[in-house]
């Protein structure tokens, strides 16, 4: 399964747009890119998933370039409640292969 690399931590001020980039150089043709968010003392929560180009939902946007070797999670106008750990995963479209959570990116929003 493709390994992912993302920054260990990031800080941002309230109201700014935050972009977290994830590298997955060995992504396979059938792999999807999935992001989860984890607040302290809670389980991870799905944010967004994409295969190529751009995906947007009510929470975030996901940008995936043509070579798919990286992806960027974009959080618009962050607030203090966006302080969390964000995990980037590469997930297969089929089969029983396990999810591998990396270290994640600890995002801290500053008032």
């Amino acid at each position, binding site marked *: 399964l493709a390994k992912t690399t993302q920054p260990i931590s990031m800080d941002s001020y309230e109201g700014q747009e935050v972009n977290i980039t994830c590298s997955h150089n060995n992504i396979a043709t059938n792999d*999807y890119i*999935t992001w*989860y968010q*984890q607040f302290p*003392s*809670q*389980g*991870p*929560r*799905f944010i967004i*998933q994409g295969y190529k180009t751009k995906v947007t939902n009510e929470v975030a946007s996901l940008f995936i370039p043509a070579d798919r070797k990286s992806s960027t999670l974009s959080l618009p106008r962050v607030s203090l409640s966006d302080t969390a*750990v964000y*995990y980037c995963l590469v*997930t*297969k*479209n*089929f*089969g*029983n*292969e*396990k*999810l*591998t*959570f990396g*270290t*994640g990116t600890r995002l801290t929003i500053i008032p």
Partner: protein
Amino acid sequence: DTAVSQTPKYLVTQMGNDKSIKCEQNLGHDTMYWYKQDSKKFLKIMFSYNNKELIINETVPNRFSPKSPDKAHLNLHINSLELGDSAVYFCASSQRVSKDIQYFGAGTRLSVL
């Protein structure tokens, strides 16, 4: 209603004891998982069941035994608890495996003294 619920939320016990953590999902999913998150916050899968059948079994000591009485429940029994078992244990479920969104419970914080 909580989609994935696990009990207890906190568990404090002595070394050598046997304990169980229960998990239930009301999403109608076919697949359930147990994860362990240690003090360094690494989240690692332990087991996965699909329709009551074990499909993923990571390198976990034999003291850990999952049991799935039906596809809505996946319990985790731990024998002879050790200090290193202290962690937060998360249950999750998904429709199938891999790509499908996983829904996590709130976690069980296990402290072995």
